[in-house]
């Protein structure tokens, strides 16, 4: 892909997929190849958590023909999540493109692919790519986990609020002298001192 893809958290992507639920759209989420099984599984969890969208997974079809048959044979009322097709060559994608009419279905299809596979698909399956259009995003896998910058900002606000330094707070926690307020527990976890929680 020459154009940078917009990054979306898995939860946001799941929400978009559900918003299109029932329209037969095709969506693609790019992920590092090693993360694809995990991402597919987490997308399923995210979509299911939003409710009202039954999901079916298609994993590791044996070949392009098997992929087409799996999509055709899937429960028509369910949103599909496809993964494990990284071994598809450009020839596979050309074959899929030729038989694309067999892939039409009432519910949305999500394909979790590596950037390399997306390139193959765009190059070799122009009609299928036309269905997908701009509905390609890159998975922002860790976006719901606190970043270092966010951690530092939270620590700073706790220091200002309490008037204590990190060291003073830990010193008190180690001696069981920490005030009881919930903010101090968060502070310990942010400092990676979960061992002092519940003392």
């Amino acid at each position, binding site marked *: 892909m020459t154009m940078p893809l917009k990054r979306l958290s898995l939860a946001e992507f799941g929400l978009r997929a559900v918003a299109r639920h029932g329209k037969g759209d095709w969506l693609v989420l790019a992920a590092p190849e090693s993360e694809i099984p995990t991402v597919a599984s987490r997308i399923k969890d995210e979509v299911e958590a939003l409710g009202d969208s039954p999901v079916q997974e298609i994993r590791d079809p044996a070949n392009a023909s098997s992929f087409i048959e799996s999509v055709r044979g899937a429960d028509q009322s369910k949103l599909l999540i496809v993964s494990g097709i990284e071994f598809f060559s450009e020839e596979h994608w050309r074959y899929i493109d030729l038989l694309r009419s067999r892939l039409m279905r009432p519910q949305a299809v999500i394909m979790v692919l590596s950037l390399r596979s997306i390139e193959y698909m765009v190059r070799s399956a122009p009609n299928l790519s036309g269905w997908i259009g701009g509905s390609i995003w890159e998975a922002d896998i860790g976006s719901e986990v606190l970043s270092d910058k966010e951690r530092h900002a939270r620590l700073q606000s706790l220091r200002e609020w309490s008037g204590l330094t990190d060291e003073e707070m830990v010193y008190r926690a180690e001696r069981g002298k920490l005030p009881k307020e919930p*903010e101090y527990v968060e502070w310990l976890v942010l400092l990676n001192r979960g061992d002092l*929680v519940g003392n």
Partner: protein
Amino acid sequence: MGIDDARSMAAQVESRTLTQSPWLPPTPEELVRAVRKCLLTAADEDILINPQYQIHKLLKMDKKEGRAGSMVAILMGGATIDKGQETDEFFLRRDGARISFGVTLMYGDGGAPGLVSFRFSLRFPDGVSPRWVRFDLNERAGDPLLEPRCHAHSGADCLRIAIPLMGPTEILGKLLHGMPVPGPPLS
């Protein structure tokens, strides 16, 4: 009634309120999803005015190793401290109130998750009384009369009212839908 009797009864109340733990999702990730759904639904219903992307952005999680093979997780929604600062780090209700929270949980080795502590803050717009309400679960028990472990504040840090132990989505349900902005203070 003497203070000793009052304290003894408060201890019984505390014991009752903490005995029954709310059901919690088995993993921190599932808790995040449940809380996110709660907030997104409130946005769909126009209770919250934050755009969806901001709700996703404001909800954060962190996990660390705890004691004896346990795992400690924190779920954070919005700012850590709400002292009336002007930032966009809050879940904003249509009526001008704003919400922030933090929840700490412990996941034992194969056991059910347990609530360690939480803080849920609701701050009302200027000109009403009380200015804010908080639901807190302290990590440890204190004097059950003055500082019950699970309590609510209503506009004053030193006033703590014992409340039943509720789960994060149960409290959010209350803050989103069951705490209207009070009228202006009586002159």
